[in-house]
């Protein structure tokens, strides 16, 4: 596939992701931060996000499984997840976290569990989509092309 085509695919895919709310302007900001001195910046940050989120989700699952659920802890985890997902532009994950937080505030265990499922779901979705997007990006770079800028989405 030639570079132009790859770039087009990349843009199309990115557009869909933005339109469907998986990503928001913050992701574009990250893209714009990437430069020659940090050519893998986005990949790096996204990887950090995946790692961290996985841990948080695991912790959340464990905490919700306890006999006596520690809602404070839940809140802390969710807050963190909200922060990192918003920093990376994972909008739907962030929104799911916000909903989760509300239930947590009310100490509504069932609501929390449902929210956790939802958050996990959104996380897995955005994870696979980001991976796909970044793969496209890498292909472009490997083919010597430039990564299209997503500034219109920021």
């Amino acid at each position, binding site marked *: 596939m030639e570079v132009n085509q790859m770039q087009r695919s990349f843009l199309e895919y990115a557009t869909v992701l933005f339109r469907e709310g998986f990503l928001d302007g913050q992701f574009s*900001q990250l893209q714009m*931060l990437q430069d020659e001195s940090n050519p893998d910046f986005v990949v790096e*940050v996204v990887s950090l996000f995946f790692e*961290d989120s996985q841990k948080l989700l695991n912790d959340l699952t464990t905490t919700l499984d306890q006999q006596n659920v520690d809602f404070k802890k839940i809140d802390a985890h969710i807050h*963190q997840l909200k*922060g990192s997902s918003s*920093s990376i532009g994972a909008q739907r994950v962030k929104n799911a976290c916000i909903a989760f937080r509300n239930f947590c505030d009310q100490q509504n265990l069932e609501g929390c569990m449902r929210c956790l499922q939802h958050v996990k779901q959104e996380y897995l979705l955005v994870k696979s989509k980001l991976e796909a997007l970044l793969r496209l990006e890498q292909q472009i770079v490997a083919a010597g092309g430039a990564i299209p800028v997503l500034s219109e989405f920021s």
Partner: protein
Amino acid sequence: MNLGMKPSSFTTSSNSWKSTDVVLDQFPVGLRVLVVDDDPTCLRILEKMLRNCLYEVTKCNRAEIALRLLRDNRNGYDVVISDVHMPDMDGFKLLEHIGLEMDLPVIMMSADDGKDVVMKGVTHGACDYLIKPVRMEALKNIWQHVVRKKKHEWKDKEYQQSGGSVEEGERQQQKQPSEDVDYSSSANEGNWKNSKKRKDEEDESEDRDDTSSLKKPRVVWSVELHQQFVTAVNQLGIDKAVPKKILELMNVPGLTRENVASHLQKYRLYLRRLSGVSPHQNGFMGPTDAATFGPISSINGFDLQSLAASGQLPPQSLATIQAATLGGGRGATTSKSSSPIPPLVVDQRNIFSFENHPRQQNIINGGKQVNLLHGIPTNMDSKQLVNLHQSAAQSFTNNLSQSNNSLLAHMVQPHPRTHILNNEINGTHHVSVVHGTAYNNSISNPSTTTVDFSSRSQSTELPVNNSFALVSSNSGMSNLTSKLQEEVNSGTRGGFVPNYDVFNDLSQNQNRGAHDWGGLQSSVGSSNIQQRLGGVSSSVLVRPNGFSSNQKSGPLNSSSLTTDNSLSRIKTEKLPDMGFQNGLYHEQFGQEDLMSALLKQQQEGMGSVENEFGFDGGYHLDNLPV
């Protein structure tokens, strides 16, 4: 910046390319930023953004490490950016530490844009509050906080300074007579300012210097010096502690009355804040004089530590007090038995609203003494304080009570001008509190609210929390507040003069005007409060940038406020840009919320706050001595 070590948990972005000259010419390029966040994703992003701004970035993921870095490198950083929620230490606690010890501008950040949290940031003295996700634009301008702080310090402090000291941008140098940290950080900014000021001041100082004709460097309130100061204040008694006499008692060559005066002002604020009594209009002197308040005389016979240990003092309060006061546990001297000690406003809520950390216990046990500031005259009459104290003092032990009583007496002296809180406990009250203005006032009477930010540069550490905590203690605060009301209004004692500079300063980066209280809800118990609130004029703390709190503020759960009264919505107004990133809170306010705390206390069946608050048309800043 010279970082001797490179622990794995933090990294520096560049290595010592900085020469003072280079920095000077290109300010804000090379601004040395320390970023603290436990979220690795955010940390990395911030680092990159800051580097793109050409700042020199050091990142670390733990507050303890950050503190260590800062302590080891006192002049190594210009500004600190810290997350609010961190596992090992609450961001606000870190903020206080930094304010006390290093007096650096600190910017808080969080994904949490709840009003109460943002408010906390303000009251704890943060220069700014960024909402995550942080954008480049927000970071680009953080240098302004560095400059502003310096500027305020120059303005606030009586200067006597020798030619040489100001110029030193020596980062390596630690304790210079002048404020080294300040100068070295925004170096070029500092330099030209310094020269200018120096010229002016040299002329002035010679004339007005009454203790010596020598040109003195800017006074640095070292631990020892501060200790002498405190001793002198205690000797004189809070009421009588006037700068001239303090100066005489201290008998420090080269110290002038002006130095003492400004230090005294700050000290008072500090005490007030520590004690958690309603803030005086002067607000808390938090970061401006960080190092000076290290040693705090212990309350006579009163050992916070033991108190805490005995479980009477919530450990967190103790820790926070210690943290606040000592930032590192300096020695404490015993004050005289007669000196009033600021009440340890130990409320369940804890002055600083810090969470219980085992670490705090460690701090407590670490030998840091529990030293409460003593003898800081506050605006309350002793009587009121006693009342206040008694009502509030569930957690106080007897001795604590006693000391507190006296402290309280001293602490909460209502200053007529600072009746911010007294009367108008509305959103402005909030503000006023935030600004450290007479919290007392709000509780008591609807007097004019004065926002006094005096000694603070733009980050005011308002003892709002404290006072609220005090007031809002679960135990029948209502009577307390009513008492306070009477008493607070009774005028100031000790001639504490509200200083409105801070307010001005604050307003520099904020627009005054109506602010959006977005769902400010508090259990407004009494109509008084509402009225009072209505009248409070204050510069609002947070700007409702994109703040849709009005729409958003959902019903405030009564539970969230834990108040007896049903919550009422406080009408919010939109604030023009207040300089905070996204100001506002739309979520329910926690108990820590000043406003709610205050309102809680005022449980006299306040109706809907909205009507009473007079937010309409914005805040009136009448009482603000702009």
